[in-house]
């Protein structure tokens, strides 16, 4: 089953004066996939979304969304995509139901506003003016507007910025529900957890370049990610014995704790079994897993949250 990709980007190039926003970006998004684009502010995420959303003309490169060129075929493409833009708004005095009604009127194919509102937990806010919605409600409202016409591809730029963790998780559920209906989603984020938990694949971008693109797990693994098991022992024990175990890569002592780095789900079990066989009881056992955050640091040399 090799359906045509829903989004294809080949050699996307875009600069604003001296600032490079997209540099030889090449990737594709399979139909029904959630692709996350992660990078610091100014890395080129918004430029990418704007080029795909027909708002900006690339300097060079081939873009295809549902087989259409966003620059040339904008009129054919716009009815088929749903877009949530980072710096976009609606008039403060516009009521939510009016906004949905208005956006629905732009489309031939559309869902019932009441259904979309109910799905996004906004049924009670239909009569509230945009300016009176909370941050989370506003974000959900923009998602509702992006979904009113049953788009095949949805582009979401920083959709959970400014939301509290609970609201953010609510939005993730919505995005997953979209994907489960077969919608292709490209989203940008600068929240590592969002990329890790929500996205099928993640593109890491830095200065307009894609430095890595893979599933979150494989990105972590490729960046040298591993598991770490640490514990204390109060009986003397020759640590070399642990070093010979298959999943173990390295054993060392840090601040009076033994730290074992290795791979695989069985790491902790094997270590404890080996220690127990020698009659040693490890205390205060902790296990940690490298995260996408570590991978991002390794790939870009930058921390995501420093701006």
């Amino acid at each position, binding site marked *: 089953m090799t359906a045509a990709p829903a989004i294809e980007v080949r050699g996307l190039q875009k600069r604003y004066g001296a600032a490079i926003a997209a540099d030889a970006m090449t990737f594709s998004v399979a139909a029904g996939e959630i692709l996350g684009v992660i990078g610091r502010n100014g890395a080129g995420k918004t430029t990418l979304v704007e080029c795909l*959303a*027909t*708002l900006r003309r690339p300097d060079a490169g081939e873009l295809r969304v549902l087989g259409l060129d966003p620059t040339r075929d904008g*009129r054919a493409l*716009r*009815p088929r*995509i749903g*877009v949530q*833009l980072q*710096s*976009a*708004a*609606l*008039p403060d*005095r*516009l009521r939510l139901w*009016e906004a949905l*009604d*208005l*956006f629905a*009127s*732009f*489309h*031939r194919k559309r869902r019932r506003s009441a259904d979309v509102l109910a799905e996004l937990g906004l049924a009670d806010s239909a009569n509230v003016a945009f300016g009176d919605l909370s941050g989370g409600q506003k974000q959900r409202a923009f998602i509702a507007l992006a979904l009113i016409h049953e788009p095949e591809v949805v582009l979401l730029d920083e959709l959970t910025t400014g939301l509290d963790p609970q609201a953010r998780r609510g939005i993730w559920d919505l995005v997953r529900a979209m994907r489960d209906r077969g919608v292709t989603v490209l989203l940008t984020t600068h929240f590592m957890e969002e990329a890790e938990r929500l996205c099928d694949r993640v593109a890491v971008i830095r200065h307009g370049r894609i430095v890595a693109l893979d599933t979150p797990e494989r990105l972590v693994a490729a960046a040298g990610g591993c598991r770490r098991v640490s514990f204390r022992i109060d009986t003397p024990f020759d640590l070399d014995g642990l070093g010979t175990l298959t999943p173990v890569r390295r054993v060392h002592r840090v601040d009076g704790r033994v730290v074992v780095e290795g791979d695989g789900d069985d790491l902790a079990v094997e270590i404890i079994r080996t220690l127990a066989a020698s009659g040693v009881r490890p205390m205060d056992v902790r296990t940690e897993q490298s995260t996408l955050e570590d991978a991002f640091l390794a790939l870009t040399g930058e921390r995501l949250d420093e701006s």
Partner: protein
Amino acid sequence: MRGVGKLTWVEMKLFVREPLGAFFTLIFPVVLLLIFGAVFGNHTSGAAGDVGFVDAATPGYVALVIATSGLLSLGINVARYREQGILRRLRVTPLRPGAVLAAQVAALFVVTTIGVGMLLATGRALFGLHCAGTPGPLAAAFAISSATMFALGMALASVAASARAAQAVGMAIFYPMIFLSGAALPRELLPDGIRHAAVVLPLTHVVTLLQAAWSGTPWTTQLSTIAVLGLTTVMASALAVWSFRWE
């Protein structure tokens, strides 16, 4: 066209919900009419000579309504829509870009028409407002005047760097213009020097054209006024097209 009618309707509702804009376009000209009408009345031997004051002043108030919605409301609204990203959001819908702006213009034109209707109805009910003109030239004068002011408003929105700038520049042009052009105050009250200098103001020619149509002066005597307004409309539109930005 799909959605344009709905957007126009929504824009009209939003206009009414913005108390300040609604007041200045719809209520303020009526208030002026009430105040000056109460002071000077509408007798043919009154302050404006052989026509009643209200009959003489009404075309100016019509010009005031047109300038308020065309220049000020349109200019500031479009600049604000751009600044807030509302134009951006509408641009990623199937609505054609031109249609987004056309809906703004259409909504404000309807508002202008309603404002003029309220003004005329008030004048008629309270002061026995009398119009010597015929419908054709009156409609043409209203259309030409609106085209000029709406084009200027669109030029203002395009040139202004921000919504605040559009507001500041718009007010700075609007207030002197309504008093010097004969829109808010009868021209006869102004010193000659100022009256002559006021020919540089587009609204002066709007007032002239509306007064001529109102008093039934043959339109063939107004060719130079029509030419000035036509040229202003073309130049303002060209400036708007040339400098317009969506964000």
